[in-house]
């Protein structure tokens, strides 16, 4: 498994697949390119989704929420932060009142792009579906 990300538009369309060569099974490294993509699309970006290893409901790490907050500080607006596991999806949104207070909501009707995100994240995902 390799963590993978995708920048999403307000229409729910993937704008950029984030697959740096230094990604691992448990991390996406800091990337100036990812920030440049988000900034370039700042008028139409709705959020950034990424995959986590394993099954079950994923939760954001401290690294995740501090990146959520920093990117929102730079953009000047809130985004949505979906996280996927092999078989589940949640969406994190700022809930306040504190800077790192993000609430996780379970998503039961997954958007179409989630299939491709899993294909790009889990090498044997098609076999898992069988």
């Amino acid at each position, binding site marked *: 498994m390799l963590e993978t990300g995708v920048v999403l538009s307000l229409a729910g369309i993937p704008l950029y697949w984030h697959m740096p060569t230094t990604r691992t099974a448990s991390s*996406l490294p*800091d*990337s100036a390119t990812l920030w440049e993509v988000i900034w370039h699309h700042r008028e139409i970006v709705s959020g950034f989704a990424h995959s*986590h290893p394993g099954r079950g409901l994923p939760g954001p*790490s401290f*690294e995740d929420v501090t990146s959520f907050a920093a*990117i929102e*500080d*730079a953009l000047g607006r809130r985004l949505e932060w979906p996280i996927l596991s092999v078989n589940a999806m949640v969406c994190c949104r700022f809930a306040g009142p504190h800077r790192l207070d993000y609430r996780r909501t379970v998503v039961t009707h997954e958007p179409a792009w989630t299939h491709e995100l899993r294909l790009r994240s889990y090498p044997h995902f098609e076999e898992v579906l069988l």
Partner: protein
Amino acid sequence: MNMPIQIHEARVNITWQGQNGDLPDPVSFDATDGDVLQWVTEAVRAGDVPGIHADRRAVFRDFVVDRYPANDARPFNLIQVRPKTPFGG
């Protein structure tokens, strides 16, 4: 208007709250990340960055400092202050 930038200096570009601007004065290209973030924080809080409204609550705690040497297209060193973007872990 920005000051002339010497070979050992850099322009500092900042993105904050959907706005982008440069520090009015160049800084040493090898200034520490901590110093750069401190100067940027003070400048944004004071409203000293053209293009960025004063924000007394500005905090660059989870921002990183990228350094780009001068090249043919940009004949001066550039320091960019941007949000960190790692995930997972």
